[in-house]
């Protein structure tokens, strides 16, 4: 028997596999496929305070081994979420993490503060890195200062542990991670999507209604892995690796470079039980390699 659990300090997970925000709906969409309690946890779709319409379609474009999305965080808003969805999620014996969005620093704080009134939320993931809502894809996670300020502000209003989610669209991901750590974030997750676009050469128009979107999927994995490697060596808080994880082997690479847990995004679309397959694959790999606690492999890269 392999012990797959990992301890983030502020949160103990059954196993290191979380479903990533925006790719797992509010969780319930995946109930037909497997028992959600088998997951380490899942991060629900990003929430603003109010409901949001999202961006003009088309919102998805496939690229070689990748997917560009410009959903623009369509969603029901935090009040409806807490009323209609959270009660069912709170019953689940797995870590329910809520992805928190904001147009500005105040909104992040308002959403976090509101969520803190409810039971059943294991942590907040601060989505300071969504490329799909502002002109040119800018977001707080592109600046150490804005990252520090946003995290700090949210920390002040919520007792819930914070996982700050970083953007890969930066020169120096390490400095942003350190800013989040210094502002009191309990963990870092990375990466969100890469700003990207595609053109329809027949109509000469951008293929996405929103012109620019965010690239995810296996295409980005090698870049995401490099960033997780750099950040994990630079911060003391736990790091959650995200980006193109489709197999147990992918997940293990992220853990070896220093991730304490991982999130699975686009893979959920291709295969709704991707998370389950990854958990099972990890367990089998550990068994075959005589590893008793999966946490042994965290940061075990030899250089």
């Amino acid at each position: 028997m392999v012990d797959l659990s990992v301890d983030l300090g502020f949160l103990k997970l059954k196993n290191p596999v979380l479903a990533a925000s925006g790719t797992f709906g509010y969780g319930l969409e995946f109930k037909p496929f497997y028992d959600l309690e088998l997951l380490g946890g899942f991060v629900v779709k990003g929430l603003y305070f109010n409901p949001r319409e999202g961006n003009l379609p088309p919102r998805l474009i496939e690229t070689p081994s990748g997917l560009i999305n410009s959903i623009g965080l369509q969603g029901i808003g935090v009040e409806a979420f807490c009323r209609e969805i959270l009660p069912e999620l709170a019953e689940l014996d797995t870590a329910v993490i809520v992805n928190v969005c904001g147009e500005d620093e105040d909104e992040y704080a308002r959403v976090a503060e509101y969520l803190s009134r409810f039971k059943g939320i294991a942590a907040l993931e601060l989505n300071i890195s969504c490329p799909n809502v502002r002109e040119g894809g800018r977001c707080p996670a592109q600046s150490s200062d804005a990252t520090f300020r946003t995290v700090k502000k949210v920390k002040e209003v919520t007792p819930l542990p914070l996982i700050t989610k970083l953007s890969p669209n930066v020169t120096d991901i390490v400095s942003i991670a350190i800013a989040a750590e210094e502002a009191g974030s309990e963990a870092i997750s990375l990466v969100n999507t890469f700003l990207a676009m595609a053109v329809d050469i027949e109509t000469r128009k951008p293929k996405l209604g929103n012109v620019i979107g965010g690239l995810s999927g296996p295409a980005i994995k090698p870049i995401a892995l490099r960033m997780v490697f750099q950040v994990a060596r630079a911060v003391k808080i736990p790091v959650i690796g995200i980006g193109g994880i489709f197999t147990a082997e992918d997940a293990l690479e992220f853990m070896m470079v220093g991730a304490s847990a991982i999130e699975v995004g686009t893979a959920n679309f291709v295969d709704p039980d991707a998370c389950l397959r990854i958990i099972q694959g990890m367990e089998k790999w550990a068994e075959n390699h005589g590893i008793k606690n999966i946490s042994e492999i965290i940061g075990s890269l030899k250089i």
Partner: protein
Amino acid sequence: MVIDRKARIIEVQDWDDYFLFRLESPEIARLSQPGQFIMIKVSETTNPLLRRPISLHNCTGREVEIFFQIAGKGTRLLSQKKAGDILDILGPLGRGFSIKNEFKGKEIFCVGGGRGIAPLYYLARELSAAGARPVIFYGGRTSADLPLKSRFEQADWEVKVSTDDGSLGFSGLVTSLVESELRHRTPTFLFACGPEAMMEKLAEICRKENLPAEFSLESIMGCGLGACWGCVKKIRRNGETKYLKICQDGPVFSRDEIVWQEKENG
């Protein structure tokens, strides 16, 4: 609801660009509705990455059929599968066409453009089963786009075909054919599936004729499960106009709900 994950291909029929697969999929055959679809994994590698949505073309006993056109690399890969291969599928998905009791004995127009004909065979069979009289309108650019003509005719429904180039049947758009038929016929309902421009035009005709109608929409789909919000269309419903998910709230929407032309890249 997702009830079947694997389906063995029993038979493949092909007409150059169009393919009809017969699949063994007992649960979908038992529980699906016309207008629903399945998501098919077309590749073992990461390019193409996503599953492809394909409508149910027919369901009988333990079997379902799909009918598709090669539109790009995903459908091309699908077309290369052979009898005996196992397809990795998810389905049945979505909300299908509404077949109402009051259709009994009535004439129902079913309009398909190109590959949009796919779900109408299943629909027409269920309409017949409900005692209605489906009239099939089947339009294509040229005669090669109408491979299912004889299949529909054999089913003993009235079938009217049109081609843009006049190579078979009515010469012109299928919308004009429907319009001209409406001059001397009064169907009870119209169902359509095909290019969006065709359906938009039909919606306009139906509104003028006061003919209620439902349309099956297409969109690129991330998940097909309602989890990604990638497939949305602006829909008027309950006094609100908002983005609904084609995969979950559709793909079938009714005549006045659909906001056909949203401003683009705005």
